[in-house]
Structure formats: C-alpha cells, structure tokens
C-alpha cells in the first residue's frame, strides 16, 4: 500500500510532472472528444495527414517568433484545402491525394528545420516533449483546447448529424460546407495540442484510438464521448507515470497504454468484443432479423 502511494505521489513532487499531467489531461479531453467524430466520419487518415502537415507551420512560426499554433493552423487547414482541390480537379482517389499532400508538407517541414537555425529540437516536434513543456506552450495549449472544446460542445449535434447523414443536414438548411471545414479546423488545432504531448508521429493515435475504443463499448453517442475521454485521460496519466518510473519515451508509453486499452475492449467489450461475438452465432450478430 505504501509502495503504491509512493509510486503515485513521489513524481508529483516534481513540478514538471504536475505540469505534464495537467496539460496531457486537458489535451486528452480535447482529442478524446474529437476522436469520436473522426472515428464515425472515417477521417483517421485525414487526421494523420493534418497532423503531419502542420510541421512546416510549426517550424516557420518558431523561426518568426510567432505562436506555433498560428503556423500550425495555417498549414493544417491549407493541407486540407489542397487535398480537396486536387481531388476535385483530378481523377486521383482521395487516399492517394492525402498520402501525397501530407508527405510533401512533412518533407517541407523536415527540410526547413534542418536549414532554419532556431532553438527547436526536431525530436520534440516528432515525439513530443510534455515533460519539458514551457509556460508559453502551456498557455497556447490551454487556449487551443478551450476553443476546440467550446466549438465541439456547442455544435455537437450538428456535427453528429453531419457525420451521420450530410444530405439530410443540408436539406434542412444546415451549412454542411461550413461544418466540414470547421471540423477539419478543429482537427488541425487538436493536432497541434496533441503534438505537445505525443509529437507529430503519434498524435494520430490521440485522434483515433480513444474514439475507436469507446465505439466498441456502446451504441449511444453520449456515452461514447465520455468513454472516449475517459480512456484518453487514463492513457495519458498512466503513460506519463509509466514513462517516469521506467525512464521510457513518454509518447510511446501514452500511446502504448491507449493501444492496450483498445485491445482489452476489442477482446472483452460486452456486445462488440471478440469474445461476445464468438458466443453468439456470427451470422446472427451481423445481420439483425429482417
């Protein structure tokens, strides 16, 4: 008992640990909520693309001494607009365009970072640096998170309808084009926030895994949101502790816990888990009685 308490409390005596835990909890709430929409809309690849595409924006913003969120937002939304434009103007399929655009942006970021002399550490962008996060970065992350949370909470029903049935949404006068780009903008912002915690390479996990995990557990959207946030927060907190005691990569630990939680639900989820499906006849579970 004492050991467990020590295990939990000792890291909290370090200020950087407290900050890391608070920041990543907030980021997890944002990403957990957003990942529900990403999962339902089928935008995982888009999340991957946007999170990579923000890199040149971050580098330029640092070099010009601007808030990194500004640069990231411009490039995140820019990449999405470019993907949409190329898809519309050519016959190339969307996943190809996505792969093409985000690697291009990412390569631009890599090149820039190697040429622009600045204080940025490549590995911090790629793999996150939540344990060494600066005060100004915390402030930006908090502002971004509050903005994204507000938008997603206010428009949650419209966004849900947009994911479920965009045709109907449009036919009753909702501005689906606005919703589309708004959701993508929130994705860009959340990617920037998540980048602080786990870095560009793994941020897509923050944007996909909690939602996917929660989707296996419930058929109600409200519950899905809470479960998704819960699993994201648990993963971040447990991951940070784990990395502290093991002296291992923080990003790696956080995403690993997320993945383990997903696997657990994949196996044991009450209705949609593997074991539950095995127990029922596979046919009956796939096709409800007509």
């Amino acid at each position, binding site marked *: 008992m004492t050991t467990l308490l020590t295990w939990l409390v000792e890291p909290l005596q370090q200020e950087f640990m407290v900050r890391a835990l608070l920041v990543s909890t907030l980021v997890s709430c944002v990403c957990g909520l957003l990942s529900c929409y990403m999962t*339902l809309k089928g935008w995982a690849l888009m999340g991957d693309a946007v999170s990579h595409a923000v890199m040149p924006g971050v580098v330029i913003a640092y070099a010009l001494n601007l808030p990194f969120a500004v640069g990231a937002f411009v490039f995140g939304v820019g990449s999405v607009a470019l993907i949409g434009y190329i898809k519309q103007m050519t016959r190339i399929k969307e996943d190809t365009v996505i792969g093409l655009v985000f690697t291009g942006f990412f390569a631009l970021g890599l090149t820039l970072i190697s040429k622009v002399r600045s204080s940025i550490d490549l590995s911090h962008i790629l793999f996150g640096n939540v344990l060494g996060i600066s005060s100004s970065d915390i402030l930006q992350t908090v502002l971004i998170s509050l903005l994204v949370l507000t938008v997603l909470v*206010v*428009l949650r*029903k*419209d966004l*849900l*309808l947009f*994911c*479920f*049935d*965009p*045709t*109907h*949404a*449009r*036919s*009753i*006068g*909702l501005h689906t084009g606005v919703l589309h780009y708004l959701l993508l903008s929130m994705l860009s912002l959340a990617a920037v926030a998540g980048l602080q915690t786990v870095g560009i390479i793994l941020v897509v996990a923050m944007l996909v895994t909690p939602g996917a995990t929660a*989707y296996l557990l*419930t*058929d*109600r*959207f409200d519950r*899905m949101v809470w479960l998704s946030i819960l699993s994201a927060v648990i993963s971040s907190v447990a991951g940070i502790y784990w990395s502290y005691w093991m002296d291992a990569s923080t990003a790696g630990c956080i995403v690993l816990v997320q993945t383990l939680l997903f696997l657990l639900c994949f196996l044991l989820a009450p209705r949609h888990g593997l074991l539950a499906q095995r127990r029922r006849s596979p046919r009956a579970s796939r096709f*409800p*009685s*007509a």
Partner: protein
Amino acid sequence: MPSRLPHLSGNERISVRHLCVEYHGVVAVHDASLHLDAGTICALVGMNGAGKSTLFKALMGFVRPSAGSIAINGLPLKEARRARAVAYVPQTESVDWNFPVNVHEVVMMGRYGAMNLLRIPRPVDREAVKEALDRVDLWPLRDRQIGALSGGQRKRAFLARALAQGASVMLLDEPFNGVDIRTEKLMIELFEQFRREGRTLMISTHDLSHVTGFCDQVVLINKTVLAYGETASVFTSENLALTFGGLRLEAAPAAATDPDPQTP
C-alpha cells in the same frame, strides 16, 4: 387524420422550368420541366445515370442549375429549404446502420433546422417526434440503436424523420429496394396517408411494377423529362422504349454515354 402542414398558399408543390444541370461541362439534365400539385404521388422512372439523383439534388438545392428555375410551394429553393419544405429519404444502402444513434435521435434530427443553435428539443419538437413515431408504429422501439431494427422498421424510421420535419415535399430514393411484400404494403399505406394530407411524394424507382399500382403521376427521365403526367397516359410502351431503350437525345450526346457523374 388532419393535415399538419403549415398553411401553404397555392396548390403547386413542385415547379421545375427548363432545368439544365451540368457537371464540369457534362450535361446531366437538359431542359427538364415538370409541375406537381399538392397531394400527388409521383414516380420518377429512369435508368441509372439518367439524372434521377441529379434532379433530386436540384430539388434540394444542392446543385446550381446552369439554366432554368425551380420553385417549391411557390418559393425559391433557398426559402423552401429554410422552411424545411423538402425531406429526403435516403436509400437504405447509403445509411451507416452501425452509427451510435437510436431511433428517437434519428427522428429528432428532422427537427434540427427548427431548433436553436444548441439543438435542445422544445416540447413542440418532442411532440412532433412522438407523433411521427406513433404514426409509423415505432414509438415502443424509440430507444433502439438504428442497426437493431429490421429492414421494414428502418424504412419507417426515416419516413418518421421526414414527418417530424413537417415536409410538404418528400423525395424518396429507391424506397422499395430490398423490401419484403408486407413492408411494401405498409409503406404504400403510409404514402397514401401522406397524399391525403396534401404532401407530394416523388419516388425514384427503376421497378416499374410499383408505378401503376399507387402512383398518380409518372415522370420518365433520360437526361431530360421525356414525358410526365397521369400514370395511365404516360405509361405507354412507346415512352418506356424511349426511357429504357437507350435512345439518346441529340441535346446531350456527351452525357448519354457517361456514367453517373454526380457522386458527391
């Protein structure tokens, strides 16, 4: 059952005049005209790629016509949309049945346009949803996730959404696809009720057996309106040969060979 439609001036529900729609220079619909009055069930018959879904999209205001005009209840499309006059009932195949929403939530989506920004249901919205669910006999199943419904119940859930919306014009995309006889009979009964309430239904179908049964009017389409009017007078073998026989219109030579170009 009394009509719950708001008072609408005039008797004309759908008015399409000389409509042309092009996608990137490819003609999808050319010079189409038709007029439908209140309380009409109209079949929209044509081959795949004949322009059925383009016409639906035009009626919902999703595509900008390159020429011609459309009015719903005598209103321009923008105002008609604001009044939520047109409901679209999707094909069963195009719905994600695993989506985590229940029947009540889906039907409530019909009311969103009328609610405040946060979409918090008012008593009037709840009543409309209850009434719609009662009419299609799904009130007891309102808490079911939509994928847990049977095929016929799924169809009825989306009809309830159109009812809750208070639409005076309903566009139904292949509603009888994959439906058993019992469900089909139930749906036709509902359609006939809607007609009595003064709603106008446009049903896209390539199955001709439905057309003569309960449709008052038929629109035959192949890149343009080939013929429309009373079912008996339009439904001639000559017209059908025109619709399905692959005869191409001189007006739209490029489009006739193109597959459906309007996937969103």
